């Protein structure tokens, strides 16, 4: 949506358009099918009927990054895997979001000190929107993280942000 973003001043039309765009984006976040370790089991549980990710319109796990909006990095990221994570992130279409799920992904977790092969936080590889701590986080935690991501999307606008020219 970069062709429309950052072009208009704030106004009634822009605000309504914002609302529609954000409403549609945050209620159809399609995650990438992407599980790396034990956190993926909790991510699967979140998608199943007991916790039911489909309530939020997020149940459509896409097998290709080109159709996905959200990457839930669920599990230990090794240096060997980090280059693949970065490539998958680069293949996703904008707007794209990343959730770091679990202690390993947030900051190395139990492998922080002795893990020669574990990336000390996925934010060293791709930009992260929401961190969900836990080892592994329960499905409620992941749902909370997803709702915080929805809040973040709800605050977006296509209106022109004040730049250096506006201040001067």
């Amino acid at each position, binding site marked *: 949506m970069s062709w429309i973003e950052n072009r208009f001043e704030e106004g009634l039309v822009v605000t309504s358009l914002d609302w529609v765009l954000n409403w549609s984006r945050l209620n159809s976040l399609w995650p990438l099918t992407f599980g790396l370790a034990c956190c993926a089991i909790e991510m699967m549980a979140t998608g199943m009927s007991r916790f039911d990710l489909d309530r939020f319109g997020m149940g459509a796990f896409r097998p290709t990054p080109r159709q996905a909006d959200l990457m839930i990095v669920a599990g230990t990221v090794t*240096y*060997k895997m*980090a*280059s693949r994570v970065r490539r998958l992130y680069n293949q996703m279409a904008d707007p794209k979001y990343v959730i770091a799920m679990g202690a390993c992904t947030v900051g*190395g977790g139990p492998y*922080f*000190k*002795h893990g*020669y*092969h574990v*990336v*000390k936080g996925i934010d*060293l*590889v791709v930009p992260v929107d929401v961190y969900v701590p836990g080892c592994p986080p329960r499905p409620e935690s992941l749902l909370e993280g997803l709702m915080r991501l929805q809040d973040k999307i709800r605050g977006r606008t296509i209106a022109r942000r004040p730049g250096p020219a506006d201040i001067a």
Partner: protein
Amino acid sequence: MTPEEVASLIGSAFPDAVVDAPMNTLHPAVGVVPDRWREVALFLRDDPRLRFNLLRCLSGVDRIAEGRIELVYDLMSLRPAGDGRPWSCGAVAAVRIGVPRDGGSLPSVADVWPAAEWHEREVYDLLGVSFDGHPDLRRILCPDDWVGHPLRKDYVFPVEYHGIPGSTEFGQRSPRH
């Protein structure tokens, strides 16, 4: 069959291949000379009294104080049980082989026990022991361009790998044991 009996059988067949190894431990193992390991392996697999037809595990131990790396081959003999069950466990045994830490190598037994192929790749990857005659001796866990062998006790952590910083906030660069 006890480990002592396995050791005496190997010792009677190859008198110069067996070295002394402690037997009264939790994991008794027969010590074998690296150069004779291939013949001993074929003997362990094919001798009708032994028939160790399964390699259960291959482990490597870094004895840094003694300047060598020990390889422990865990063997098992599976035979038809004859009472309805498909297999029964005949006997278990272990073989312990020491190779020098620097440039140590050992004959490969990947064609004796097919399970050894990936196990030997893992030992090569993590401890840096090379296996002569292995069909495909590449790293198996670490990336191909990884530097060093991570399970060696004097291993140094990478500072960065393809642009990703590697050290921790404590500046720790090597494993503590």
